[in-house]
């Protein structure tokens, strides 16, 4: 599989940046880490906007930087689309001219992203003739995303691109980025603080802490680790299940998916039976019931589970995190009170129930 292989180190006064990691060049890789942990710095290194003295960067077969051999591919030849944290639109150009700036400079045979489509999706039509100087914050971000996409990059670097956008727009733009991944095979490195934004999107995670890589791997691996207290709100994620669509129940607006031979129900999906579907469960949406399946409840899904591990929540001193095995790891976060009332202990069989609406 194609991979991105990166090693950089820089010494800024008061900040030592030293990362080395490999991620597959497919789907979206989330770059996580608190403010000032080096996310933007990493993206700049990959784009070739900072040249660190002894760095190494290989994109699939192509070595973009290897200071041991004196190799450094200039930015403009890397074909990376960058969405900067501040939009950085060109103030002397109209919105259309901004959007077409990279497009005009791309090789026509490599253009696979349609101008009309992007404009529609990002709701840019009404802005076309505008000067960028008085666009609103969110409008600027949308133009910046469009501009980067239309340059037909072979790698997208997005630095909190949706920070100023509302939930509604995020819900429209995110699936589009996902499709870029799937259909056009454009890998994305995506910086975001918003878990809700990244979970449906990311396949891999690079977790930065104070300039170092604290964890890297597939999103399932990273988010089921209980040893990353405080770094991400990993305890928010109960599980990320890769399921397959079985059948639709249109009369109830439900879709039944199969997960390790068991059925789960979610709100009806537009995909055909047989299609793979990613399902997420938030740990605090999981209820545990001892002794038989629960009474009729609006929480539709129930799985048999075995308690694997129990520990106090690092984030909330009155909650307990329970790691369950339902065929894959599942984290549940419950109050201490429930924990004592239900007398939970490792090895115990329980029922984990969660509502279908809790899946996305």
């Amino acid at each position, binding site marked *: 599989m194609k991979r991105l292989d990166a090693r950089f180190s820089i010494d800024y006064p008061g900040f030592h940046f030293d990362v080395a990691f490999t991620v597959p060049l497919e789907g979206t890789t989330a770059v996580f880490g608190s403010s000032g942990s080096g996310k933007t710095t990493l993206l700049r290194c990959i784009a070739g906007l900072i040249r660190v003295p002894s760095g190494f960067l290989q994109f699939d077969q192509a070595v973009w930087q290897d200071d041991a051999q004196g190799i450094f591919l200039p930015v403009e030849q890397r074909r990376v689309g960058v969405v900067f944290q501040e939009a950085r639109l060109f103030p002397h150009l109209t919105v259309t001219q901004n959007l077409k700036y990279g497009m005009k*400079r791309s090789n026509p045979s490599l253009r696979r992203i349609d101008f009309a489509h992007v404009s529609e999706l990002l709701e840019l039509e009404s802005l076309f003739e505008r000067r960028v100087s*008085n666009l609103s914050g969110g409008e600027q971000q949308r133009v910046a995303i469009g501009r980067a996409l239309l340059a037909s990059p072979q790698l997208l670097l997005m630095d909190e691109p949706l920070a100023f956008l509302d939930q509604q727009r995020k819900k429209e733009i995110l699936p589009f980025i996902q499709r870029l991944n799937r259909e056009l095979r454009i890998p994305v490195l995506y910086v975001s603080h918003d878990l809700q934004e990244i979970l449906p999107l990311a396949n891999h995670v690079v977790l930065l802490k104070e300039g170092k890589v604290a964890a890297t791997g597939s999103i399932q691996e990273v988010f089921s680790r209980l040893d990353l207290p405080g770094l991400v709100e990993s305890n928010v994620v109960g599980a990320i299940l890769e399921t397959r669509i079985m059948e639709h129940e249109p009369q109830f607006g439900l879709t039944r998916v199969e997960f390790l031979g068991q059925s789960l129900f979610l709100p009806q999906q537009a995909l055909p039976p047989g299609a793979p579907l990613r399902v997420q469960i938030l740990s605090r949406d999981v209820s545990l019931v001892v002794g038989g399946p629960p009474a009729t409840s609006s929480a539709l899904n129930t799985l048999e589970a075995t308690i694997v591990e129990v520990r106090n929540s690092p984030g909330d001193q009155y909650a307990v995190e329970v790691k369950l095995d339902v065929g894959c790891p599942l984290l549940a976060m419950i109050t201490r009170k429930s924990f004592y009332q239900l007398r939970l202990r490792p090895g115990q069989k329980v029922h984990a129930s969660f509502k279908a609406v809790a899946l996305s």
Partner: protein
Amino acid sequence: MTVPDMDWSPLWLTMQLAGVTVIVLLLVGTPIAWWLAFTRSRFRTLVEAVVALPIVLPPTVLGFYLLTALGPHGLIGGAWKDLTGSALSFTFSGLVIASAFYSLPFVVQPLHGAFEAVGKKPLEAAWSLGASKLDAFFTVASPMAVRGYLSAVVLGFAHTLGEFGVVLMVGGNIPGVTKVLSIAIYDHVEVLEYTQAHFLSAVLLIFSFLVLTIVYTANRRLPIHVS
């Protein structure tokens, strides 16, 4: 006042000189200003000082040195003579070189300031969109530095129009070849032909005023404005 019987060739020559000089200055000044704006070299301050130096010398004196340098036995003139067969002094080319030398800081300084104000960020964006360094310079940095170019052109052009000592010295006041308008006016003043001097000054002022107003109005229609 009746229009004095006059020779228009100095006006034409002046425009040519100012025009060519400004073009030369932009060509020479842009890379210098760019380098000054973005270099981290220790020599930056040195180069900055050297570029500004010519204007501290009185024009006639600078003209005197340039005359020597551009003359048939001078450093530049000699080399030029070996190449082309004639020296640079008392030629139009010589005038252009001298004027450019003298007006260089008036072009470099505003450009330097403008490039620094543009900064690296928009350039980084342009590069990441596939623009080569040169492409980004022409399509992003220059248009964003338009205010600097405006100042550079206005100062360079006006200063060349009014410049006088250097041109007089290097050009030799030869009608039709190096006798520019400023010298013509000066001549009239010298021989007490005040009417002609007033008239030519008025011509120069009105002409310059028109040029400047057109330039500034054109700029107003340009995109970069204060919000």
